[in-house]
């Protein structure tokens, strides 16, 4: 733990709850809140955030061109402070925001979308322990300050720095449950494979953050079979289901519990082996798509689409929803308490780039 992460010393004077409440109400009145109370940010607090990075406070770290707004290091610091982050989290917030803005969908209207996508933030490396991330049970939260406040900081940046407010520029029909609260610290200690950051190009076990936009997650509870291919078939069924199919390809992030990951590894499967098995077998037949009114999905052009040739596909023809490992990043998270994994639906496609935290310290 660095000095910046130390809790402040006990106050000399008694704390004033009435002043705190008034300040919180002031923040609500300004329209800055996501609905929950904010920590009112003062210059001394924000200065601690700015001291946690070498970056210039005026550096622009992200722009939303279509609305003509950008975010500086200083604005990110104010929002991170308001979100309840500790100053020491700030380089992780900046790395997460950097990773998010590498997503084509985030730059291209994703925050305004009727889909209401949620960033999935994945943290790797020693920073997990240094800052007190939860890396085991209840991986999707709540209960742990860095896991909850870092994604909230990103949500506040989108709201306040980019000016994307619900019902105005933000047009989510229902949105994703847990939007702006999903931050998973990978359970590297119980994973049989390398961390996600490695797949995102950051090697050597250093601290790094990966982010993709997601639409929902679906659990796969499969705890009674000794046959790992039974589990893979169960995963493939959820990955290939019809509901999310609006484009020919439907990428997912596979968040495996340690028990499932270790079962696959014990049968000699690498991460790539799991990915390849699922790429081959996840999908539905053309007939199933047509009967759900999604024949047009097959007819789309571009990756995985069949164009005009779709009309010649027989009803029994199998349509795969994935075509590359990049479309199915694999993360190991949670506790070794039950064989429950999660299929997280990706909005667009993961950039495939992890961001080292050191770039933002």
């Amino acid at each position, binding site marked *: 733990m660095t000095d910046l992460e130390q809790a402040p010393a006990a106050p000399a004077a008694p704390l004033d709850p009435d002043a705190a409440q008034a300040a919180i109400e*002031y923040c609500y009145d*300004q329209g800055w809140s996501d609905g929950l109370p904010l920590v009112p940010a003062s210059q001394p607090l924000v200065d601690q955030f700015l001291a946690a990075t070498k970056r210039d406070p005026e550096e622009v770290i992200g722009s939303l061109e279509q609305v003509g707004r950008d975010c500086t290091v200083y604005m990110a610091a104010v929002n991170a402070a308001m979100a309840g982050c500790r100053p020491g989290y700030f380089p992780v917030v900046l790395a997460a925001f950097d990773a998010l803005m590498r997503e084509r969908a985030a730059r291209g209207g994703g925050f305004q979308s009727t889909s209401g996508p949620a960033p999935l933030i994945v943290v790797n490396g020693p920073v997990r322990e240094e800052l007190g991330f939860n890396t085991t049970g209840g991986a999707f939260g709540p209960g742990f300050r860095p896991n909850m406040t870092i994604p909230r900081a990103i949500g506040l940046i989108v709201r*306040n720095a980019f000016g994307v407010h619900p019902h105005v520029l933000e047009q989510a029909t229902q949105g994703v449950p847990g939007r702006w609260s999903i931050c998973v610290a990978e359970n590297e200690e119980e994973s049989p494979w390398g961390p996600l950051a490695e797949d995102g190009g950051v090697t050597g076990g250093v601290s790094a953050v990966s982010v993709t936009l997601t639409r929902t997650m679906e659990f796969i509870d499969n705890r009674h079979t000794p046959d790992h291919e039974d589990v893979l078939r169960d995963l493939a069924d959820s990955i290939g289901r019809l509901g999310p199919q609006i484009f020919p390809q439907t990428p997912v992030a596979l968040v495996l519990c340690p028990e499932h990951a270790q079962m696959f590894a014990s049968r000699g499967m690498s991460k790539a082996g799991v990915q390849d098995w699922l790429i081959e077998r996840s999908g539905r037949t053309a007939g199933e798509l047509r009967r759900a009114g999604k024949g047009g999905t097959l007819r789309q052009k571009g990756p995985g689409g069949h164009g005009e040739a779709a009309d010649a596909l027989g009803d029994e023809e199998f349509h795969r929803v994935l075509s590359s490992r990049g479309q199915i990043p694999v993360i190991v998270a949670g506790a070794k308490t039950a064989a429950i994994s999660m299929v997280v639906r990706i909005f667009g496609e993961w950039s495939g780039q992890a961001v080292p935290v050191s770039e933002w310290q």
Partner: protein
Amino acid sequence: MPNAILDPTGATRMSKKAAASRAARRGSLAGARVGLLINTKQNARPFLEEVGRLLRDEYGVASVTDRTKLNFAVPEPEEVIKELAATVDVVVTGVGDCGSCSAAAAADSVVLESAGLPVAAIITDSFRATVEKMAELRGAADFRYATTAHPVAVLTEDQVKERAASVVSEVVRLLTDPGQNDSERADPENAE
């Protein structure tokens, strides 16, 4: 004296957006070259093509050409705007039926108007707030557009034609009505 509570919006960085100019209107569409800017959403093409057909058959436009938006979710790049300005006299765009594409239609419209092209954007009525906010951000707080009932994507071929027919007179009005005069519009006080 307690510390001030800091503003997270960067309000001090934001420069006031200058009022965007609105293209001069021609009295009628007779002889005009119409460009359809189709946003690729489901039914957008047949909808706009039917509007184009009606403009040709009933309002005497000289030609109707179409181009597909490169990405429905974001405003078109400058070269597309320039190409439209060089090849057509007025533009019909749509159908805005989602968060990003409705806002992008408003942004495209403001840029095209500044380039001298009258525009009629067709948006489903669920997305008024986002269109008006985007237009305001672009300096066109009094932006006008045509609406049609949401949803459009599930309409049959015949229903799309009916919808196009029901909106075409509003499209013509948007493309020909001079509206408020330009000196009033150019007043920056009115753009806020």
